[in-house]
């Protein structure tokens, strides 16, 4: 198997991914419609970089990540990881793939089994995927624990003996012990205290450099994403509405939703508030999205086209790396 990603230099390529959940009603549980959790997203991640997916709750960012691992059935699309078509892989192949794509979860309390010792939690992937046991297993667990900044005496303790930040380190150790190519970080710091967040964010960055890791970074906090990612895609109601390299996106946000999202973040400076970009209303129900651009009920600029047609994600004029789905931006 060719280990170098040569789908044009991308480790992961997702093409027009759709994940719909059927909505069933009535006595016969007939499918009456679909909840379009992920509605045609495309993205490409280069090795040893971080790709950020941001958006508010329910925008489909976690569903997208789970679809990539085929933890939920995908409706249509194409996912190429490391030259393998994930959606065409059989279950044995999928097992191998899952050894090279691992997950770091949001909740450091719910994601560790309270009845297992740290050694068992961190070592389990090795046992399952590499059939390593005994002293070699212990050795590897020790090594990875030291890499994530936990002391060796952590190995025989249970999750409840650790604080939230330390638990998140255990979760990271578990994700890294298989030496994965891609690590999906699903809100890795949003459950942590402020003074602990920066520790974990730095750790993830250090580990990325040491092991040349590729991250798919899912978060709702734009500041966290800015620090951690190279390319950022903003999602709204199952679609990517804007995507750009991190400095471009933050210096020159174009989509009205991105602008509003940034304006909504409380700034750590005492200054008169500028509430000019405040969004009206709430995210519409994803079961009955508005016709046209799904952002139109909340958009200040919504005009004719916006109510009839959903804009496609296309590059803005003069910058191939900056993509936007909005009728109001000159392409």
């Amino acid at each position: 198997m060719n280990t170098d990603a040569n789908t044009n230099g991308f480790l992961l390529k997702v093409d027009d991914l759709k994940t719909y959940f059927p909505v069933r009603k009535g006595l016969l549980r007939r499918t009456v419609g679909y909840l379009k959790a992920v509605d045609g997203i495309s993205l490409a991640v280069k090795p040893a970089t971080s790709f950020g997916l941001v958006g508010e709750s329910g925008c489909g960012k976690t569903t997208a990540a789970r679809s990539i691992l085929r933890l939920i059935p995908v409706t249509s699309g194409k996912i190429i990881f490391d030259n393998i078509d994930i959606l065409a892989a059989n279950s044995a192949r999928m097992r191998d793939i899952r050894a090279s794509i691992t997950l770091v979860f949001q909740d450091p309390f719910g994601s560790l089994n309270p009845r297992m010792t740290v050694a068992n939690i961190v070592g389990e992937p090795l046992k399952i995927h590499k059939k390593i046991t005994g002293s070699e297993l212990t050795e590897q667990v020790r090594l990875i624990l030291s890499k994530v900044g936990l002391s060796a005496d952590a190995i025989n303790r249970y999750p409840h003996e650790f604080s939230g930040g330390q638990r998140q380190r255990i979760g990271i150790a578990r994700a890294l012990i298989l030496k994965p190519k891609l690590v999906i970080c699903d809100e890795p710091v949003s459950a942590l205290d402020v003074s602990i967040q920066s520790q974990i964010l730095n750790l993830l960055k250090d580990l990325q450099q040491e092991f040349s890791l590729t991250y798919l970074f899912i978060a709702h906090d734009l500041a966290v994403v800015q620090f951690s990612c190279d390319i950022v895609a903003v999602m709204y109601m199952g679609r990517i509405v804007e995507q750009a390299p991190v400095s471009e996106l933050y210096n020159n946000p174009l989509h009205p939703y991105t602008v509003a999202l940034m304006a909504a973040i409380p700034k750590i400076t005492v200054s008169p508030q500028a509430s000019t970009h405040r969004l009206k209303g709430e995210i519409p129900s994803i079961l009955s999205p508005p016709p046209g651009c799904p952002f139109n009920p909340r958009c200040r600029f919504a005009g004719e086209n916006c109510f009839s047609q959903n804009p496609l994600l296309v590059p803005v004029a003069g910058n191939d790396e900056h993509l936007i789905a909005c009728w109001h931006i000159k392409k």
Partner: protein
Amino acid sequence: MPEIDTLLSVENLSTHFFTQQGVVRAVQDVSFSVKKSRTFAVVGESGCGKSITALSIMRLVPEPQGKIVAGKINFGGRNLLDLSKKRMRAIRGNRIAMIFQEPMTSLNPVFTVGYQIEEAIRLHQHKSKSDARDLAIQALQQVRISDPKQRIKEYPHQMSGGMRQRVMIAMAISCKPELLIADEPTTALDVTIQAQILDLLDQLQKQSQMSVLLITHNLGIVAERAQDVAVMYASRIAELSDCKSLFDNPLHPYTQGLLKSLPRLGFTGKRLYTIPGIVPEPLRFPAGCKFHPRCPVGCNDKRCQTVEPQLRSLDNGRAVACWFAPGYERPDNPK
């Protein structure tokens, strides 16, 4: 003596929990005052005692484990801790109202939102059923819920998180409280909804001149919304200040570290500053200053390791609890 424009003053409040594992000193020696029609923020990480401070003011500390062991809470010329349960009930929800973090769980799922708002009005204002309904509709209008006459008949599960938090606020302001305690009012909400709710609180405050005690872990919200702030760490106030000075010139090493470690929009550095170590557990607070094991200034200082600094007022109206803070008096012979 509390100043004239002070609405609430908390003096040397200590709240402890008596558990099987030992005494948890959740709040120790906390003093601050909330001025009329201003927003006072209490900011800190989980377990620092900020919510217990709020519950103590409402006299809602879970008994029998929890107990307010010392202090005074002066509100409207009286010490709330001296009031009988009955008289406290007349104040709670009426002159002091509270909204909680979880808009999901703090509304009762089996009653309509209208009924829940009316309940507070009928209880405290002694209005008739139809008057209460009118006032409830008015309250929903005030929190900008569209079509309140219809909405009043709905159940909490029919509403979104932001909408439910608006209902909570409507309930809280329905009796025109002088003080609104908002305990992490937007933590469960998305950022765009958070901004809407905070804007709403600002507007309501301007209209009604109420004071807000805002409990939060988010320093950004403090910077944008509060005028005065107390930073809490491990059951004590580390620093007390007006908001602008705090962010311009933090005095306590904890505040300094916290402000430096936050990822901010526009930050382009390679690494974030970190405060080493972890937040201490309430049963295993370190001796001396509780921040000293993590402190870049005082971790090796004998005094920091053994003697806990008290919150002392400085000349500029701020207060800080740190042996090394500028302007902090260091008595030569501590006890």
